């Protein structure tokens, strides 16, 4: 790769000489200037090693990427995903040959195992990283396992429950999802249009555990609860800023399906009256959901060491702390050592005093066997609304 840089430079120099000789000085200088600019901007592209990385926002922050590039003389090409399922589909369609690692929602990292393009984590090699995690995330970590092997490492997490503006509603009101179906909240509910995220909590309220195999009767219950929820729903919003704005000004009394992912950045900006809570268990069924992002290595035949190094880097305490607090969202991280790096203000914004309560009252967001049936029901009920 270094050689490649020298070749390009000499070619440009030769072009410059020829240009001058042919009386095309202006064009030659232009080419040289463009060439030097190109080389400067492609500095990392000429690095010793390269890494193709598919990830969500936040993971691509220059403060995270650049120190790694410098220290390893590596270039990282980022492919940002805005939809976990879409990112997985891209990999499944053949892009897995091009990428070295991916950061996405944990069910999609776990799915890389059965899909056949996962480079499994050697737990012994990552023993130091697992040792730094909270006990809940240490190996063997079931939500990311396939056939007993780890498909990735957890990188960010939070919980899904009602997100409430306490200026308008008491938290106790939302100790259950009942207000979603209460006529007093007509046109005051916002569902987050984030794939299966709004479906799962509503299914739990209907008494159906969506993470288990569902029969026709259970799917009918999911249909009924979605139909009832749509009656009070003012908007199904994919854009986080629109949802947050509505929550702050009271247009929406609760966001369903966003949880801490929709909350913490607002709290960080001083809106500490916005909270995400986990409802009380209903008939023995935990109503909260723990979501998690994970980073996994992709089996592209290269067995790249630098990809493993990056995975260790991204879960290290300092980087985990940066990953937790980004401009768009703020989230918890599984590294327990990172906790000491957060200020009190940041801990408060992340609702760290509540995190294990939420954990204890939640299901883990993992692969749901009937997810396509539930998404189809969502489409059907929305069309019939």
């Amino acid at each position, binding site marked *: 790769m270094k050689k490649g840089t020298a070749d390009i430079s000499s070619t440009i120099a030769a072009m410059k000489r020829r240009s001058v000789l042919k009386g095309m000085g202006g064009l030659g200088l232009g080419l040289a200037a463009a060439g030097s600019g190109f080389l400067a901007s492609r500095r990392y592209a000429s690095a010793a090693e390269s890494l193709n990385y598919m990830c969500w926002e936040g993971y691509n922050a220059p403060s995270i990427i650049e120190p790694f590039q410098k220290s390893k003389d590596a270039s990282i090409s980022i492919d940002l995903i805005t939809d976990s399922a879409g990112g997985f589909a891209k990999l499944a369609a053949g892009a897995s040959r091009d990428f070295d690692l991916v950061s996405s929602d944990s069910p999609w990292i776990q799915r890389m195992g059965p899909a056949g393009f996962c480079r499994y984590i050697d737990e012994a090699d990552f023993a130091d990283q697992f040792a730094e995690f909270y006990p809940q995330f240490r190996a063997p970590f079931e939500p990311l396992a396939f056939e007993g092997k780890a498909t990735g490492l957890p990188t960010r997490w939070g919980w899904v429950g009602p997100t409430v503006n306490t200026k308008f509603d008491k938290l106790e009101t939302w100790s259950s999802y009942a207000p979603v179906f209460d006529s007093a909240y007509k046109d005051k509910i916002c569902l987050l249009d984030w794939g299966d995220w709004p479906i799962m909590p509503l299914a739990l309220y209907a008494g159906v555990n969506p993470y288990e195999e569902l029969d026709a009767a259970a799917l009918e219950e999911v249909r009924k609860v979605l139909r009832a929820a749509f009656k009070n729903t003012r908007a199904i919003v994919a854009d986080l800023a629109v949802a947050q704005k509505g929550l702050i000004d009271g247009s929406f009394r609760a966001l369903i399906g966003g949880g801490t992912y929709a909350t913490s950045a607002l709290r960080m900006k001083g809106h500490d009256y916005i909270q995400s809570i986990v409802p009380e268990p209903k008939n023995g069924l935990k109503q909260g959901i723990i979501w998690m992002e994970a980073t996994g290595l992709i089996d592209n035949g290269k067995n790249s060491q630098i990809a493993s190094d990056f995975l260790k880097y991204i879960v290290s305490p300092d980087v985990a702390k940066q990953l937790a607090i980004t401009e768009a969202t703020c989230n918890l991280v599984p590294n327990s050592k990172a906790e000491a790096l957060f200020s009190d203000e940041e801990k408060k914004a992340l609702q760290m005093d509540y995190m294990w309560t939420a954990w204890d009252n939640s299901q883990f967001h993992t692969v749901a066997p009937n997810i396509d049936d539930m998404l189809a029901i969502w489409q059907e009920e929305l069309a019939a*609304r």
Partner: protein
Amino acid sequence: MRIERKSWNDPVLVATVAPLALVMVAFLLVPLLMTAVLTFQTTQYYRLVWTWDLKIWTEVFSKPHYWTIMIRTVAMALVCVVLTVLIAFPAAYALATRLRTFKTQIQILIIFAFLTDAVLKTFGWILILDKNGVANWLLMHVGLPPEMLNLLFTPAGTMIGMVYNLVAYPMFTIYLSLVRIDRDLILAAYDAGASRVRTFFEVTLPLSRPGLYSGAVLVFVLSLGAFLEPKVLGGGTSPLASELIRQSFETRVNWPLGAALTVVLIAIGALMLVACAAFALRRTSATGRSA
């Protein structure tokens, strides 16, 4: 006028047409064909399985909700066509006749609005239609009750966004038709005793039909693919076809289903255009016969 007949054996003609034909084949026909082929495939664990199967088409034709959304999309597109034309025609007429002094300035303003990114424009409407937005603020200041307008996250909000984002198309096509009308024809109508209104309906409007039709077609086709407006201003509660297709491709990772719905939407659009073209031709020939 002598009409020169050209043969497909003429190498100059072939060389002239070939590049465009190649581009059309490579970037329109082949992708369309691939989309159609995709509809007969199946997926297994989010991966395409290359088979020939009618499973997806059976699903499309057996689930009424797909058709509900398709019909809603066509209805919204037709309403959008009517509203944009109703707004665009007087504006274009004024631009071509009454506002000629400020023509350039107004055209620049319209072009600026037209070239501004649709995402920005659509999100901008939130600030206007929001319950605490500019529209309600103005209404409140003229003595009307607070929060009177409740258009955000409704189908009316979607329509406002669609009309706003698309109105420039018919405005320009109609304007171009209007400025090409021979002024002498209008003056001749006046000389023959026709009133301004009659002149408009019997001379100006018929002669501006090409621009009117082409603007309407542009708006209709673009409305069928409206994505941002129903999502951002409509609040996602009344999804249109493009959102259904997105959900199928992205959220459900069911590419054959997404492809089948795309084919359905294209077919509906094409059929509507053929029907409109037949109607327009009939009108034109009827006008020709009566003249």
